[in-house]
């Protein structure tokens, strides 16, 4: 009788553990609906501009790195606590998006991805971050 209780308890704990892990697994974010106004935007910072590795890098490290990771692989220390995967900025799929798509996703955001319009105020500084993410391409 005692052993039956033990067995039942172990099975219960095992079921709880497995279901909890299933619930914790991150989902990939669904497709983004980017308004036409943003989609058409073009970066005012050109590839190779000096601001990419100064302003872009500094701003990315301050605001983005904790979730997206230093190289944009989605492995920042806070990423594991999110319900949605943060994606991989070095992947071809991410890099194939337009400047405006990346701008909208980065600064307007949705759900767990916060809005950064009030944290990064200057337009050119935002583009320096987009171009810094572009440079993460494999």
């Amino acid at each position: 009788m005692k052993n039956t209780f033990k067995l039942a308890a172990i099975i219960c704990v095992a079921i709880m553990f497995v279901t909890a892990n299933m619930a914790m697994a991150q989902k990939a974010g669904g497709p983004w609906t980017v308004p036409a106004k943003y989609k058409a935007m073009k970066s005012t910072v050109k590839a190779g501009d000096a601001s990419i590795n100064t302003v872009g890098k500094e701003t990315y490290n301050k605001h983005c790195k904790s979730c997206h990771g230093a190289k944009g692989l989605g492995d920042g220390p806070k990423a594991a606590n999110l319900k949605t995967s943060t994606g991989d900025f070095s992947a071809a799929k991410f890099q194939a998006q337009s400047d405006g798509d990346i701008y909208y996703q980065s600064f307007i955001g949705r759900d767990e991805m916060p809005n950064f319009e009030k944290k990064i105020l200057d337009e050119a500084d935002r583009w320096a971050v987009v171009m810094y993410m572009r440079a993460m391409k494999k």
Partner: protein
Amino acid sequence: MMKKIYLLLRISALAFLTLIISQSVAFAQEEATEDTIIETPKERPVRPAFESGLLFDAATTTLQPSKTLEMIIQHRFGIIDFDDNNTDFLGIWGVSNIRIGMNYSILDNLTVGIGATKFNKMEDLQVKYRVIQQTRSNSIPVTVVLYGVAGIDGSADTKWEDSYKFSNRLSYFTQAIVSRRFNDKFSLQFAPGFTHYNAVDSAYNHDRISLSFAGRYKFTPQGSFIFSADFPLDIEGIKDYKKVDATATVYDRPNICVGFEIATSTHAFHIYLANAQGILPQEDIMWNKNDFFKGQFLIGLNITRLWNF
């Protein structure tokens, strides 16, 4: 001693002005090149000179955008006592001071705040207004901010004995802060201030003028070395000036802070050494008797948290 401090202040002010002027020339040329690359015709403000609106116990010229709520926790442990017999541990077991405050940005250039501090049960109201902002083209070389703090001493009425009136509890601090972000790493600010206490012990003055300096050197994208110093001035020409009696405790030591700042998207953390144990600026400028250079300092910690609406 005071003559030496005046001389030091004059030299510092001159050096600060020279730096601003020389940087203005060099900066203007650099920015012209940057502007042509990014093709942005309108005047752009520089990024803030400091990561947070708070630096130790001082205000900086940084203001958060409108509709931002900021929570501030400031903590100062007890004075570190290097006496062999003392059983304290770096002041951590000593009497500590703490303040909790909330700031709210009504406009992009106007922030108001409230707070409560442990020592003297102080409650405070604060206001900060940005008059002009440094631009990237260097057409405006500095940011200028006006800052005011009204403190209400919440001690029992008996502290003022028979002459108690509510107005005895009030103290004020006002400051004009001028800062310059020299480059992505280095910023400095200079701030003359005026402190007034409605009621003080008969041996002391009600008013005091001070000069404050602060700066930061950023050595990683999130980490900076930070420093500040408030110099209380003993000016005989000030209204109702009274020379403090040699037998009374003299509260005229500069308030010096040095430490590190870690800034993230929503937080700023400071860990530092300081010698004044007050947290409100008027308390530190009016009532500090600890001498930093005689080892009379303490460990301080600050945390700020931002919410945007």
